[in-house]
């Protein structure tokens, strides 16, 4: 095992923090989409009887976990694929020829991007309060954070894995259509996966986001398809597997820095 360099991880993280601070407006801008989902879906369908949602649960409460899941999915996938922008800018070469092990670089990127994703998710949770969502107490908030973290790691790993094998950003739309959207729609973000027809339902259980969303819903509003412990266990297994594959692809991608 190559040594992990804390200093390197820290500076990669600090670079990301400086960037989001410098481009605050971008961060705010990326909140617009999820908030629109909350406003237009959440308020619009608030009175509607959506199949599979237990009585007494308002729709906005129900989709909060879904909107956060969506934010984590998109942010983390794009965070991982930032690698390709850095490659196009040339900066990746500087990172890749430094004496820092690929593993440390990978960890640095994961830690940095997940910080951003989680900051955004918490902001959504806060904005939800304006729409009548009840902010969780401390214990539940911490549990939510745990789910956020593991979900974010999972999709960062996936984003990094994919971009380790892509030449440039040209393939973005393909990844968007064939990876990100399917993951999103199969996750039960906006209605319980039980509402899907039988042929689609099994696919949902291969989607890590399903467990992330279900788990967050459990800790946020006490409604879920599976016990949250199970959600967490399965999600963590997915996370571990994807991270290991991601690290491997990243370490062996022979001309990532070229």
């Amino acid at each position: 095992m190559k040594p992990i360099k804390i200093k390197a991880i820290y500076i990669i993280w600090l670079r990301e923090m400086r960037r989001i601070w410098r481009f605050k407006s971008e961060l705010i801008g990326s909140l617009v989409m999820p908030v629109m989902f909350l406003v237009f879906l959440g308020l619009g369908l608030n009175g509607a009887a959506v199949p599979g949602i237990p009585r007494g649960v308002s729709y906005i409460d129900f989709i909060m976990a879904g909107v956060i899941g969506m934010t984590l999915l998109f942010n983390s996938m794009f965070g991982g694929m930032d690698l390709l922008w850095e490659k196009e800018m040339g900066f990746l070469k500087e990172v890749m020829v430094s004496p820092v092990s690929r593993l440390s670089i990978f960890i640095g990127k994961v830690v940095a991007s997940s910080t951003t994703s989680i900051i955004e998710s918490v902001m959504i949770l806060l904005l939800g309060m304006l729409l009548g969502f009840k902010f969780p107490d401390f214990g539940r908030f911490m549990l939510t954070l745990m789910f956020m973290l593991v979900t974010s790691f999972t999709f960062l790993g996936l984003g990094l894995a994919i971009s380790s094998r892509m030449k440039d950003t040209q393939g973005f739309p393909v990844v968007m259509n064939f990876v990100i959207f399917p993951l999103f729609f199969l996750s039960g973000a906006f209605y319980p996966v039980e509402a899907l027809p039988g042929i689609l339902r099994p696919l949902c259980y291969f989607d890590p986001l399903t467990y992330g969303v279900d788990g967050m819903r459990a800790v946020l509003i006490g409604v879920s398809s599976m016990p949250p412990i199970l959600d967490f266990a399965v999600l963590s297994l997915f996370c571990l597997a994807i991270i290991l594959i991601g690290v491997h692809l990243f370490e062996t991608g022979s001309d990532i820095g070229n």
Partner: protein
Amino acid sequence: MGIIEARELVKKFKSITAVDGISFDVPQGELFGILGPNGAGKTTTIKMLTTLLMPTSGSAFVAGFDVYRQRDEIRESIGIVFQNVALDLYMTGRENLEFHAWMYDMPGKLMRDRIKEILKLVELSGRADDLVETYSGGMRRRLEIARGLMHRPKILFMDEPTLGLDAQTRRRIWEYIRVLNKGEKITIILTTHYMEEADFLCERVGIIDRGRIVAMDSPENLKGIIGSDSVTLDVDSGDCGLFEQLGFVKSCGKTGGLFSLNVEDGEGKIPEIMLFAQAHGIKVRRVGLKRPSLEDVFLKFTGTKIREGSGTEEEEEEETGRQ
């Protein structure tokens, strides 16, 4: 045994052979130059030696480590200035340097001192806290160089470091490169398009063309291959052969109204030549002296003038022809 040893290095990109069997050694502490026209394979060679590209075949050792199997160890020993700047446009100049220092594990105080010193060298102190996005091309180049010079590696690779810089800045950077090489004993491998740069800096130069080394020696010896000075006389009439009566004239050629005499130490011989001409009634209108330059050497070995910039039609034809 050199600190860099390359043997029959080859790199193929699909149908293009960018580097076609290059071998050379660089002893520790040398300032070695790689000279070649556009597309000769300079950058590709550097990329293979710095672990950015896997060679197709051949072997190379950098600081004693194998470029195939000991890539991490190599990265510990080198620094690079890239031809295409590799800066983060969305950080400030200072932040780019800081990022580098942390990645290379430099202690905090050393980092701050070095950043100050190096910003001064490249005259960016005043702009250090602006985003690199707002820098001009030359400023980005200078920052790129500054970063490469910061952590004092064992071996420093510089791929056309001073491309596009003004003459004054280039001079200052040359001096600094020399100090690093002589004072800090850093081995430096530098590619360049500028003949004066190679001549001024490099102890040894390899001329590469179409992926192969066509000549390799010190600039002096290379120029020696071209031969001696040539004194040109613009005359009305007369016999060129006459000058061969002067013992020191090695040969003499006539083109149009111009005589060119090959002599050693042209400057010192001009007075004698003039007296001789006068004595033989040859009226000289102008005298010129031409020293052999690396440019001539380059011309001789590659058959081309060094091309600055790229994209002429001729060149593209050549490149496709090579596939």
